[in-house]
């Protein structure tokens, strides 16, 4: 899959006892803010609105909720499998993992 300017491929990874997604790969609009991804994941996992959820990019940092997905994809996405699929790795957990 080739990267494009209109969408971003996300690959979710559960950490610890966080619920596991049946399908870990999604495509979102590149113009979306990271907060929309968090809200979407919360819905997919069926978490209560007040349940804690922590998201990290590349097991390293949590982007600000208003960061644009296109910027994150450009700077932090990489090819992850034999087919060369470019994706942004997002790890999620219900307790803080990387600070």
């Amino acid at each position, binding site marked *: 899959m080739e990267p494009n300017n209109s969408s971003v491929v996300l690959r979710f990874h559960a950490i610890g006892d966080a619920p596991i997604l049946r399908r870990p790969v999604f495509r*979102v609009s590149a113009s979306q803010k990271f907060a929309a991804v968090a809200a979407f994941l919360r819905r997919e996992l069926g978490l209560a609105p007040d349940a804690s959820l922590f998201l990290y990019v590349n097991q390293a940092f949590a982007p600000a909720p208003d960061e644009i997905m296109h*910027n994150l994809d450009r700077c932090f996405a990489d090819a992850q499998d034999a087919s060369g699929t470019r994706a942004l790795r997002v790890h999620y957990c219900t307790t803080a993992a990387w*600070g």
Partner: protein
Amino acid sequence: MATTDLASPSSAAPAPAALPAALSRTSSAVAVDSVNAPASFPVPAVDDAVIETVFHAAVPLAFHVLDAQGNMTASPPLYVLAPRQSYLHAVFARVPHAVAGLLPRPSTPPGDATGPPASSAADLQRRLVSTSFLCDATGTTLPWHVPIGVLYDQSQHPALRTHDDASWWSPTDGIPPWRIRVARTTDAPTATAAFPFTGLAQLESLYMHAVKEAEYMAFGSTRKVMALSKSLSEQLWRGVMDNNLSQVEAVTKDLFHNEPVARAWPVRVHIRDLAGTVATFQPLLTPTSAPEIGHVVATAGVEESDTSVLLVQGIALTCDTPMAWVHRHLVGCDGWVHVVVIKQGGADDAKTEVRTTTD
């Protein structure tokens, strides 16, 4: 693969453009003489005086409290000379004795936004959480997690206004402070609020993650930040809150400047267009592909023809300023070089906007 449309689409990022020629300097801003900035990469000569001056730079703010109807209260404005590196809520937290009576209470009835002074730190924190800051000219909610200096450059650079725009300020008193409205979060325009402020701990967390993201951008890992002891992490945040250079530099020097940038410049380009809208572009540029700041703004799609001012830390730069020098001397406490580009024509547009709101 599932396709998920999370919201309505917006404009795509601008395509890379050719490197523009040097931008003209503006007489209203301090200009850095790029001739004196070393052109060689990757290790620039370090000028401690520049670093100290930039770190201690401050901007004048005037906070006006609004009632529930959005009108100015009778309370006089609070004038603050705020550090560029600090944040709006952090500034208020630093002077609780001055702001306790100004901060709105979440449960006050309409027309009574202030109330008695806060009696405890917990009460002050509770009031801070229910407080939003609005730009006086546009009425939009200001992003509270963005350094004050960056917000100031986006909307208050001298190129964007004239003295007669501020009818409430005498021109003989010099440049007017940036007028910011203080309102209850429930009264703030939700459409422009990125996400709610929930406390200083959240601000600290966002700050530390911004530092990590900057280190990942520059070096491809967050090894050094993760290796910081708890006391050093707290020292860094305290240094930002207290505007203490020695505390901050003792940590960030090792994080960002002990070795040359290996992956990409940690740079964010904030482009203010002709309509006054600010879009943030984060390019992935290696030091060899972007040795000068002109390469950075060109990648963000900014041409010389539509650019009037290029600012970093409130300083107007020319396109031939070496990025290595900029990164060493003008990087923010969060590890990012925030470049503010005000496109040509933005000044006239902003003046029209201010006049409309003050008529």
